[in-house]
C-alpha cells in the first residue's frame, strides 16, 4: 500500500538522528586512525626524505628547520607539506623509517592564499627541542664531528705511514722475513 510510504516518512521525521551538524561550531567525532593534517616529531626525524620520494603528488619538500636533532638529522632538513596538493593517502607516514610523521585529527586547512596552506616543519611539528637543547645537541654534534675528523686525520696519517713502510719493504725486495716486517708495520698502524 502507498500508505506505508507515509508511515515510514512520519517515522523517519520523528526519529532522533543526527544528520546535519552546525559545522564550524560542532565537528563530528573523528576516529583515532583519522588521516588528517600531518604531525611531525622533529626530535626523531632523520631528514632522509623518503616521505618526499614516495609522495605521488610530490607535495613534500625537505626544508631546513632549527629545532631538530642535529645528531641524527645531519643536514637539518624536515618535511614541508603543500596541503593544496596533498591527497591524504598516508603513504609518507607508512614509508617513514623512524615513524616520526603521523597524521592527526586536525582537518581544517583553509587559508587566504595558496602559500597559507603550505605548512612547513614549524607548523606541523608537535614535538621539538627547545633552543637550549638544540644548542647542546649542536655542540655534541660538533664535538663528535671534531672527534671523527681527528680520527679520520689519524687514520689517514697511519695509512700514509703504512704505505711508506710497504714502499720501503718493496724497495728492499727480500724474500724470507718480509711478511714479518709487514705485520709489524700493520700493528704500528693499528696502534696509531
Amino acid at each position: 500500500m502507498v500508505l506505508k510510504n507515509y508511515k515510514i516518512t512520519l517515522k523517519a521525521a520523528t526519529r532522533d538522528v543526527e544528520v546535519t551538524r552546525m559545522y564550524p561550531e560542532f565537528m563530528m567525532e573523528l576516529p583515532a586512525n583519522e588521516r588528517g593534517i600531518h604531525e611531525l616529531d622533529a626530535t626523531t626525524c632523520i631528514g632522509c626524505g623518503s616521505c618526499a620520494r614516495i609522495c605521488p603528488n610530490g607535495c613534500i619538500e625537505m626544508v631546513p628547520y632549527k629545532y631538530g636533532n642535529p645528531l641524527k638529522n645531519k643536514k637539518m632538513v624536515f618535511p614541508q607539506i603543500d596541503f593544496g596538493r596533498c591527497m591524504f593517502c598516508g603513504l609518507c607516514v607508512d614509508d617513514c623509517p623512524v615513524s616520526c610523521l603521523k597524521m592527526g585529527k586536525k582537518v581544517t586547512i583553509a587559508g587566504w592564499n595558496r602559500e597559507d596552506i603550505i605548512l612547513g616543519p614549524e607548523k606541523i611539528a608537535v614535538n621539538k627541542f627547545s633552543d637550549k637543547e638544540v644548542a647542546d645537541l649542536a655542540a655534541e654534534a660538533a664535538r663528535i664531528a671534531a672527534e671523527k675528523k681527528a680520527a679520520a686525520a689519524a687514520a689517514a696519517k697511519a695509512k700514509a705511514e703504512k704505505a711508506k713502510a710497504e714502499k720501503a719493504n718493496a724497495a728492499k725486495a727480500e724474500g724470507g722475513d718480509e711478511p714479518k716486517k709487514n705485520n709489524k708495520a700493520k700493528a704500528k698502524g693499528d696502534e696509531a
Partner: protein
Amino acid sequence: MPNASDILSAIQSAFPGAVTESRVESDRRLWLTVDAKKLVDITKFLRDKHGFDHYSGAAGVDRINDNLFEVTEILTSHGAHQVVVLMKVKTPRDNPSVPSLNGLYWNANWYEREAWEMFGINFEGHPGLYSLLLPDELVGAWPWRKDWKGYPDTTTGKRAVEKLATSGHTEYRFEPTIEELKAGTVHQRQKFPTFREREEMELGSDAEMIMHMGPQHAVVPGPFLLDLLLDGERVKKAFLDVGYIHKGIEKIMENRTYPQGLVYTDRMCYMASISNNEAYCGAVEKLLGVTPPERAQYIRVILAELSRIQSHLLGTGEFLTLLGSATYSPFMYMIIDREDVVSLMEAVTGARITHSFVRFGGVRNDLPDGFADQTRKVLKMVREKTTEYIDLLASDPIYQQRMEGVGVLTPGDARRLGVSGPPLRESDTPYDMRREDPILVYPDLDFNVITRTKGDSLARVEARMEEILESCHIVEQCLDQIPEGPIQEKLPKKVKPEPGEAYYRVEDPRGEMGFFVVSDGSDKPYRVKVRGPVYAYFQALPPLLEGVYVADVVAIAGSMDSCTSEVDR
C-alpha cells in the same frame, strides 16, 4: 570440472604447433601465447567445446624492446569451470594487426576499439574501429605507446605553445600551426565520421529524432552521452559515447612506482575503492609471490563487504531519487544509514571514501578497539532498515508498475552482452567472483549468491538490497572467526617484482573487477590494464534500450548502478 592443465592439453591436441608458449600458473590460470593465424580457431574451439562463454577483456602491451605488440585476450566461463585463459598474440610493431574476436563474442567490440585507439593495433574484421575514450583529434597519435611523447607535438612532447598576451597574461595555444602541420612533427587528425555524424546517418524518416541525454544530465551518474534515436515514444536505437572524464589512469600508473599506483585505484571509482585496492594489490602480490597473513585477509574481507553495503545503499538510494520518488525519499534515509557504515570504515582506514587501505602483503591498520561491537550494532540497524526498504518497495504499487518487466535481460542476452555482477546474477546466472575465483578467506565463509530469474529492473534493485543482508552476514562471520596475529607480511623496502604478468579479479559491488599487471623487473609497472564492471554495463546499454519507452530509459539505465568514472579510468 576441468582445470588449466586439462584445457592446455585439449588445445595442444586439437591445434598441434599453434601454442608457442604456455604456463599453467595455478588450477585456475592458464597463460598461452598462440599463433595469430590460429587465434580465431582456438577461441572458437574454447567457446564451443570447453564452455568459455565469457569474454572478459583484452589488454594491449607495447613491447618496444622486442619491437612487438602483444594483445592478451582474457576468456572465462559462466560457471562451467573456473579456468581463466589469458591468450597472448604477438604482432610486429611496424604494421600491427590481429584478428578480431568480435564475430565470436559480441562484447569484444569496445575492448578492441580501446586497444586500437590507444596502441594503433588494427583488428581485422572489426565492424567499426572508431575512437571510444579519446577525442577524435587524438586518433592516430596512439598515446599509450611507449615512445609517445605528447600532444600535439609528438616529437618533443610540447603540450602547448606559450605566448605573452598584450594584457600581460600568458596564453596557451594547443592547435598546431600550418607550418607545424607541414613540417609533420605534429599529429594530424584522421578523417572519419564523428560520433554525431555516425548517429545522424541512422536517421530514417522525418518522424524520427535524436534526443540527447547527457553529457550533463540529471540522471546520469557522471558525464557520458546517451543519444536516443526516437520513433515516437519508442527508442529505436541508442548511442553511447564515453570518455568525457578520461583520466588515463592506466598510463599514469606506468609512471608511478608500485606503492604510488595504489592511490590512483581509489580514484577510479570511490564507491568501490576498497575492492579496487584489493584487485591491484592482489595482482602485485601475485607478482611478488607473497600471501597476506590470515588476520589481514579477514580485515580485507570485512572492509570489502562494508564497502559493498555502502555502495549498494548509495546506488539504490540515488536510483530511487532518479525515479522521482518524491513522496518518500529513501535516498536520504539510505544516506543516513550509509553514514554509519562509512564511519565504521573510517575508524579502520582513516578516510571516508578514498581509503588507500590495502597494502601489498597486508593492510595498513589493524581493527581499532571496540570495532566488533560497534560493527554488530550498525549491522543490526542496517539489516532492520534494509528489510524495511525491501518491504516498502515491494508494497508500493507505483514503484512496481514502473519497474516490473522493464529492461528485461534474458539469461542468454546477459551472457552474450558480457555484463557481470548484479545484472548478470539477476538473469539467472549465479556468477560471483567470490565463488568462481575465490580469493582471501572467502572459501571459509558461508554465504549465498543472490540470484533472480526475471532479469528486469525490479529484480536488479531488489537483489541489490538482499546482497546488503548477505554482506552483513559475511561481516558478522568474519568478526566471529577473525584470528589474532600479524597484519603485514615482511616485504623489501623497495617493491620490485620479478618480470612477469599477473591477472587478479575480485567481486566489486558492481561485478567483475580485474587488474592485469605486467612487470619488467623495475620498480614501476610496465603496463596496468583495468577490466572494470561498469565498462561492460555501458557497452550493454544500447542493445538493452532498444525498443523501450523513453520514460523507461532512466529506470533501466539507473538500475544498472553505473559509475562513469570507472569506465573512463
